């Protein structure tokens, strides 16, 4: 049976495609966007949140961990994540639920069964199911199996991807999806590399490929202050999207938010973009109008 590692199910999702949806967040990602709002999904094996404010200093984790890797701090414990080893048993032992695993293995049947429970909401709102992440495409066998089953049940399926995947894998996935939400995070290769850690050649090529296949797409353009908001690059991004043709049904501008920042601390990670501010409404509106002038159907926020 195919299994997948799922971080969470977001029911009543309103931003990841048409209607009311359930978004399935998959773990594992091959990009490292500085602004990532879901850092707990970066690692294919999932992650472990630590809520220091729940800790009562009982010392159980300190005793269980390899010597000196978990120590008492003023509030909660300090965890040396590199050397402390597997936190799973510690999570199970902590009486105060200070440790919380951010993912679980699920088999396809169980997941689809759960997703189908919201059928009435999907149907009443022309919604469906979206797979996102992390990079959902990395677990393509699992996705393929799940989406095929959902489609068989008459449910609209959407794939939210950053597109960094071998073309044949992506094309195969497209057979079972009705819609692709496709991230284009920068046009310029250097900017892309600086922001996400990877080159975007394949991403742009794949976008063209999907359009050639007439795959309905919503392009998502995140705009982060000082990272990928260079006006020239934004223009280039929009022009590239325009060149993709009629497959692109809509372009969602996603203004940067820092709602994921709190998660970094819980994962023992550092958030590099601390205090970079927000995109102004005026700027977002201007970008929207720029896209509209090109004849694109633009939204802010989706």
């Amino acid at each position: 049976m195919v299994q997948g590692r799922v971080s969470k199910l977001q029911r009543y999702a309103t931003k990841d495609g048409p209607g009311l949806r359930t978004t399935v967040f998959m773990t594992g990602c091959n990009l490292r966007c500085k602004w990532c709002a879901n850092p707990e999904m970066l690692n294919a094996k999932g992650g472990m949140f630590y809520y220091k404010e729940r800790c009562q200093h009982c010392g159980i984790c300190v005793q269980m961990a390899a010597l000196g890797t978990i120590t008492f701090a003023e509030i909660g414990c300090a965890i040396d994540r590199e050397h402390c080893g597997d936190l799973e048993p510690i999570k199970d032992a902590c009486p105060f639920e200070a440790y919380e695993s951010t993912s679980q293995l699920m088999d396809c049947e169980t997941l689809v069964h759960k997703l189908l429970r919201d059928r009435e909401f999907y149907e009443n709102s022309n919604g469906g199911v979206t797979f996102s992440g992390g990079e959902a495409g990395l677990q393509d066998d699992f996705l393929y199996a799940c989406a095929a089953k959902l489609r068989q049940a008459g449910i609209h399926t959407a794939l939210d991807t950053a597109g960094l995947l071998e073309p044949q894998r992506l094309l195969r996935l497209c057979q079972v999806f009705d819609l692709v939400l496709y991230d284009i995070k920068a046009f310029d290769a250097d900017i892309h590399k600086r922001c996400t850690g990877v080159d975007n050649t394949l991403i742009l090529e794949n976008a063209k490929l999907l359009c050639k296949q007439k795959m309905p797409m919503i392009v998502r353009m995140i705009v982060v202050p000082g990272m990928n908001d260079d006006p020239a690059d934004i223009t280039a991004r929009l022009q590239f999207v325009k060149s993709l043709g009629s497959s692109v049904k809509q372009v969602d501008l996603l203004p940067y938010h820092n709602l994921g920042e709190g998660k970094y601390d819980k994962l023992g990670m550092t958030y590099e973009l601390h205090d970079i501010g927000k995109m102004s409404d005026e700027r977002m509106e201007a970008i929207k109008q720029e896209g509209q002038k090109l004849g694109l159907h633009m939204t802010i926020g989706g």
Partner: protein
Amino acid sequence: MKCLSFQPKNNDCDFERIARFQKDMNIRTATLCAERAEIITRSFQETEGEPIVIRRAKAFADILKEMTIYIQKDSLIIGNQACRNFAAPVFPEYSYDWVIEEMDEFAHRSGDSFQVDEATKQRLRALEGYWIGKTHKDEVLKNLPLINREAEKQSVLHRGGISMSGDGHIIPNHDFVLKYGFGGMRDIAKEKLTHDDLTEEQRDFYQASILAMEGALTYIKRFSELALQEAKHCTDEKRAKELEALGEMFATFMEGGARSFHEAVEAVYMTHLLMMIESNGHSFSFGRFDQYVWPYYQADIESGKLSKEKALEIITHFFIMTNSLNKIRPWDHTQYSGGYPLYSNLMVSGLKPNGEDGTNDISYLCLEAMNLSMLPEPNLSVRFHEHTPHSLMKDAAKLIRKGFGMPSIFCDEVCIPAMQSLGLDLAVARDYASMGCVETAIPGRWGHRATGMTYVNFGKILELVMNNGMDPESGVQLVKLNGEPGRDIHYESYEEIWQAWEKLLAFYTGLAVDCDLVCDRSLKYHDADAFASCTVNSSLARGKTLKNGGAEYDYVSSSSIGMSVVGDSLAAIKKLVFEDKKLTLQQIRDAMDHNFEGLEGAKIRKLCKQAPKFGNDDDYVDEIVADVYESYLKLLPSFKTDRYGKGPIGCTYTMSTSNITSYVPNGFEVGATPDGRLATKPLNEGASPCLGADKEGPTAVINSISKLPNKRMAGGQLLNMRFSPNALDGEENLEKFTRFMEAGRNKNIFHNQFNIVDSETLKKAKAHPEEYPDLMVRVAGYCALFSTLMPEAQDAIIARTELSW
């Protein structure tokens, strides 16, 4: 002022005045008024020895003749309940000891405070002597069995408001009232009196009805004089004309039927107001307002007398005026119903008895009026079904988005079958309306009362199951589950625990019904109210008050609190003790005893918390919660009300979860529970999941609720959900939210209500109430200004899971 979707085409609706009027009403101060108490005391002294129904009618007429009247500035709807706006009249005949005892505390309550000046205090104290030993409460306490008092000591039972106040819970037959007027109803009684085969009871009733209706007409004529007088001195030309018109209208108003839309709305308000001077029950409700005022609206629109804009103005004034009324309760009852609630439910839309959609202009205008009035009363509800216009639901969603909790929505596809489960014909069932918070009744056919006579604390019963029937707090033990005294008990299997649950539930339900009967028998005397009785079918024909069997139908729904806590607790026990064998029952009980304190307690609590919880679409626990409902539904129909065999159809019990804020004070009394809940924390509200237990989002909550026997909850099923404001931002989210509400129809959802306020705002409002005077929240089937709730109830609302997507 921005409307939801209505676009005014003329200036007939004065929005500026509405804003001013709304503001005046919003900053109103609750006070006490001694007038009613003084007049009824004197009147009762004069009528000693006469039949009670006549004594009450005479007192009613005396009050209406003598009380201060005033015309509310700016209002097109007139009529006042007491000497000042939002002053609560006092009803010494129901209970008076607490008025005297708590008098100096009224102003200092942590919620629902009342300002009382020294003169009023003195006037009220002067009346005390007459009422000692004569009140309804005295009668109840005299007849309450000892064992009931013990069950109250255990905190399993709580005597509801009707043990010390009037009953209320009436939806008049407005078609009838509007057609005949008070004069017409008097004439029916007069005609009846000419029959020579009347019993003494009937003769008294008809005489009382005549007195009551005459009293009402006298009161109305006083307003005619006052309005004409004020018109003379009014410098504002428009207002002077209005007052003059009101003066003329009131000269003959309600002598016969309503003659215009304005009269129809005024008559609805006036009937409501008069019932609330006659008795101090609450939940006097308006029923299907858009249905019964429709013919008057239609006629006036067609004849050109009325514009849609003017209709909106009249309805809005009516809505605002319902907030001028007030009720004071003793502190222990206030905790059960915080926020000065009157629960005057007003329902729009839904199927007509013939199966057609009943949505009309008035349905939309009521939503607009609520958008303009934004006050806790009336408690606006919308019915919907497969063919309800999407535009109405969209307007409802727009109103919900405003964040003051209204309207709540009722789904015909679930509520109608629920009403049919009582044996009602389909056409009758289709005419249901909500009364109070979410209790359902058929307007004009039900006599008094749906829910909440005696409250049953399910959480406490569960605690007793774990303790062999003994309450660990009070040490009182009424049932020895294993036959032995003391609190130790051993269960071999989940089935044994379930049997103990059923046994105790049956035992305490019996006691609760006994308490209801004691209260009801006393209210036969103390709530012998001719005026209210005449507005309900059959009463005039039979010559009986409602409490004595005058109504066409009679059902009481028992009020149960904490089904989700019980279900979650049983699921935790079943899974942890009997299936996974991770814990023993003794371990759980020890942890409960110590409120899960210490390392061992924390370990056990973690397991308990991680057991399946209702509200997450998990069949394992959802089925157990459904079992808890079934265990109660199975019991109830065998119990009879006091009217059984006296005329009304039914006279049995059904189930409801409309438990108002009782889940908070009931929680105070319950120790830690096996679901991981800590001692004294609130139980769950209505049918909603336990606080913080639902982690899978709103659709999962709906899915869990959908597995309950909602189509047999003829007394009403309460669900309260909270969304963060950004979940309804913008047109697209609004549309999705509307679709979400509509999908409830396919999900067996009886009722749903929404709070759209984020926790941050609520926390700030708790800390700085003066900065949030008009923040209104949905409490439990009704709305209240957040600042008027007691802190514990505020916390419970803050803690209710925020569904933030």
